[in-house]
């Protein structure tokens, strides 16, 4: 589903955010991406959403080489990737329902169909009764769940999340993670960037670690950073996540 091959990203100011990163994520996997802030997690997610382009290397998502997608095709690509943001990126001037409906409206789904699918998504995140409220009336955890509903309403095969539990207390955080696991169980490939190591340790999924722009493979049980050599080639199979 996701293939990074020797990907580097250097920003115009000279900062090298990613250095020759290679990894492969199978369809249906659930993977965590960890690392200190500034380690390159956000950059990696931005590359997958085509918010940024790599300086070097190839990225393949869903069989499509992202380098070959021209700018004007980017919107159509993004409709097939659900993204959950740390700051939710909700619109406060409209209702929960309208926030979740936005991707469907953009994709040109018929109005009747929109109602059905938005309610299905809200039901899944447990906010069906709050569809008429505005996001400002909701708690932080509820806002994040609206963000998740919006990310999955289009039924994307790939779900990306950038620090989805960043501002939540531990109990709410594990609720959110369980939600992601549920989507993963129906076949959605999930990739979550998070620095909440304790939370990740409880969930036995594959973990990718970024340190100063380089990628290390390993779960939390293997101790500190650098316990394994950096993954710079695709030769070693790294499918440690749940298999289908």
């Amino acid at each position, binding site marked *: 589903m996701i293939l990074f091959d020797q990907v580097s990203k250097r920003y115009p100011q000279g900062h090298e955010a990613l250095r020759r990163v290679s990894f492969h994520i199978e369809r249906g996997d659930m993977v965590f991406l960890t690392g200190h802030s500034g380690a390159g997690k956000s950059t990696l997610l931005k590359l997958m959403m085509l918010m940024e382009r790599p300086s070097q290397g190839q990225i393949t998502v869903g069989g*499509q080489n992202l380098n070959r997608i021209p700018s004007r095709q980017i919107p159509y690509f993004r*409709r*097939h*990737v659900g993204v959950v943001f740390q700051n939710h990126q909700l619109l406060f001037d409209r209702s929960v329902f309208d926030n979740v409906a936005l991707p469907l409206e953009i994709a*040109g*789904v*018929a109005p009747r169909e929109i109602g059905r699918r938005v309610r299905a998504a809200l039901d899944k995140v447990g906010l069906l009764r709050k569809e008429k409220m505005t996001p400002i009336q909701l708690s932080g955890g509820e806002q994040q769940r609206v963000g998740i509903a919006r990310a999955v309403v289009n039924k994307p095969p790939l779900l990306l999340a950038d620090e989805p539990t960043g501002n939540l207390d531990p109990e709410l955080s594990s609720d959110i993670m369980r939600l992601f696991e549920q989507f993963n169980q129906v076949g959605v490939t999930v990739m979550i960037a998070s620095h909440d190591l304790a939370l990740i340790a409880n969930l036995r999924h594959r973990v990718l670690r970024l340190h100063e722009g380089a990628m290390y493979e390993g779960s939390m049980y293997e101790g500190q950073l650098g316990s394994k050599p950096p993954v710079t080639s695709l030769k070693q199979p790294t499918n440690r996540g749940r298999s289908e």
Partner: protein
Amino acid sequence: MKDYKGGRGVGRGASAPDEASAVREHGAQKSRQTNEVQSYLSHHRKVAQESIQRLRQSPLITLMTWAVIGIALSLPTGFTVILSNFDQLGANWESSAQVSLFLKHEISEADARALAQTLKRHPMVADVAVITREQALADLKKQSDLGDVLGYLDSNPLPHVVVLTPTPASANSRSMASLRQSLENLNEVDRVQLDMLWVERLFAMISVIERGAWTLSLLFGLAVLLVIGNTTRLAIENRREEIVVVKLVGGTNAFVRRPFLYTGLWYGLGGGLVAALLVTVTLFWLSGPIDVLAQSYESGFRLSGLTFGSTLLLLSVSMLLGWLGAWLAVRRHLDAIEPT
């Protein structure tokens, strides 16, 4: 399977087809084309309504923008209406152009009438009248204070005059010049006087004013573009966050532009209506004095206002300007907003 307008989805090109999503998407595929057109139209309707809603949320700004556009458009519109009135008036004057033939003194009244009969058959002549010297003298005595002086004259110094009215088709300077030439060659004629010069001067003035009106229209049209462009730019700044989110979840530039273009259209429509109102009220206000003026000239002239057709034209032009102004602003400011 599930791809929108040329979108090659993540789901495509994958090795193993996801059974669950295949089942899910089977229903969605049904009659998708009609659905797509339907939802496209309903989206347009929704955006149009929402943009009106937004205008109503800030009524003061909306009314002020309409007023600015309306005032800017009312000047060229008013000019155009007045010019079309001039044209109508000018047509009357043109047909009232006359040629006076002052006959030689020795020509008798009978000869003058015979000449008139001959001239009446001329293809460029619509009507002929004879003013005898006695009649002319009587008119002169009546119209001027010279009555007493004229009484001292031994004989009538005035000649008989034949007055020609040219046909409307030949009432232009070129035909009149050739007509004049042929009339001057007649033996009976002493002098030919053409009452065309002032009409020509009038038309020259009208064409000067016409060019002025065009220049005004261009300048004020440009002003409308700038006003709407600037208003749109502010609206874009206010909705920056929303634009970013829409682009993040796959909104195309066209999708993001649409509400702003509709807003421009409504600004144009409102401005056009204000302009039509201003012009109509002004013309109504002017019509009283103009009626008095026309009556004093014994003219049946009435000031004509905006016709239905020209009102439609005004509204179309103003809506087009609104749309164009918004489009220019959107093109410049909106496509540059990208999520970071």
